[in-house]
């Protein structure tokens, strides 16, 4: 870190701002570095359309019997939708990568929480798995 004259940071700010204003007039310039990123309407509406299509898909899939795959299809569609929202509506695609890291690590810890809990639940399951249809519990009484 070199010592700077007091003027230098301000010059930096001005660059950022004039850059932003330039971007406003030139949507093609969206990928360059700067104060922030303005999302072009085409991407906004494209994301919206993709989310609508995926919503229709996730509803339509429930009408088809895929057995145990249904829940996984529903979850994958949900994850894709969430990724679209996070990347485009929430600007993560153009944001500082650290913000994306926060999101991913939160999801990671949720996955650990759910995963280990499910593993543990499996261990106890035989103790209170209910009998299948039509049986009563009177047979299992002490």
């Amino acid at each position, binding site marked *: 870190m070199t010592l700077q004259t007091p003027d230098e940071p301000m010059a930096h700010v001005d660059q950022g701002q004039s850059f932003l204003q330039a971007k*406003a007039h030139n949507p093609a310039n969206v990928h360059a570095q700067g104060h922030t990123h303005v999302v072009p309407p085409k991407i906004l509406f494209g994301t919206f359309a993709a989310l609508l299509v995926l919503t229709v898909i996730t509803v339509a899939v429930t009408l088809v019997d895929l057995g145990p795959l249904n*829940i996984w299809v*529903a979850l994958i569609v949900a994850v894709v939708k*969430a990724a679209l929202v996070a990347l485009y*509506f929430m600007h993560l695609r153009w944001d500082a990568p650290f913000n994306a890291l926060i999101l991913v690590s939160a999801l990671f810890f*949720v996955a650990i929480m759910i995963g280990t*809990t499910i593993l543990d639940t499996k261990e106890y399951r035989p103790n209170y798995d209910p009998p299948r249809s039509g049986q009563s519990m009177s047979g299992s009484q002490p």
Partner: protein
Amino acid sequence: MSTAATPPTTEHGHADAHAGNGHGHGHNPHLAHHFDTPEQQFASGKLGIWLFLATEILMFGGLFCAYSVYRHNHPDVFSFAHHALNKWLGGINTVVLIASSLTMAWGVRAAQLGKTKQLVWCLAATILGGYIFMGIKAVEYRDKWAHNLGAGRGNEFNLSVAGGALGKAETKAEGEKGGMMPAGPATTDAKKSDHEAPATSSVPGHSAKVEHAGHTAKPAAATSQPIAAVADPNAGTPDASLIRPPGYVPGGMSAAVAARHAAAHAADAHHEIHVDREADMYLKMGHLDQQRVYTFFQTYFVMTGLHGIHVLVGMALIFWILLRAVGKPNRGWVLPLGFVSVSAFLFYLVLILKNEHTAEAMKTLSLIGWISLAVFGLWFVVAYMRAKAARMAPQPEFGPEYFTPVDLVGLYWHIVDLIWIFLFPLLYLIH
């Protein structure tokens, strides 16, 4: 970051140096003194909101964890109970939230470009989306209560109260809450028979009878007499009185389902098939699963309820952004206009929630609605006239140089949408 070496005394030095630089920017009034540059301030704000959103994800993660464990252990409960939810209303709400996310993202863009008018309309549209979402949610919740599938005591699957001595006594006192079930006489009959059960359940002969009904006669009873009584697992054991929740009635739940079944028979033949299938599913469930149906509704109400609170908070935050976006003279009349919209929503609630059982509460609610409409309407008229009389140029707060609050509130709104994206398939679309 690159400016970290700037001497600490340059905070005001900046302003002076900057004012004279001829670019038309004074010292950025939005730059807090503990930040070096607007970029740094913006990046810090983003970092802060993302950390907050991470805590939100972890909070909902706990609920999703509970959901996973419960669904993993009781898949039958989920495939049975989710039929109570209306997947079309849930789907419309999904689209509403996605659309409001679009208007919010568009609003952020408008703020970045300094298009104040566009920003204001986008924020208003986003708030409207929130109202539509909550309005549809209100219809859904109302339907749950109307079918005795609400939260707490309003749920026929709630073992601790359904038809029980405790529940019955209080139900009567509250003016026949149980009467909200579609079956008028059938329900009361079923509940009455439940009600009498606990009085005699201490008699060994009775518990033996119940056990018998659940044990052997069940399939036969299922055809002749729509649904048989479910045996109390603790019947006849010394644990019976200890383990049972107060007011527990053997067969209480199944009688409630039978009542619905009878009601559907009476109502129309078309509906009958649907209810028959549900009743059939219910009978085929494991016995302990039958007792756990209520937990699905608990899960549903807690998850969607907490999400709904987030929607309300998001709407309030967006309204705060809207006030700042319209700027000083207009803010005065936009504020009461927001309260007027709340009054309008109250009237909507009165409209959809009103029936013979809620008449009293709705009378109070509509009174609140009228008073607030009058007060805020008057406030709006006066403020609007004053703002016009002031002949002051609008002073919007947001533009290319400062739009951080719009962006951060937008991120909050998107995370609300994001959570719904998972809630919708997991609660409504169970196959």
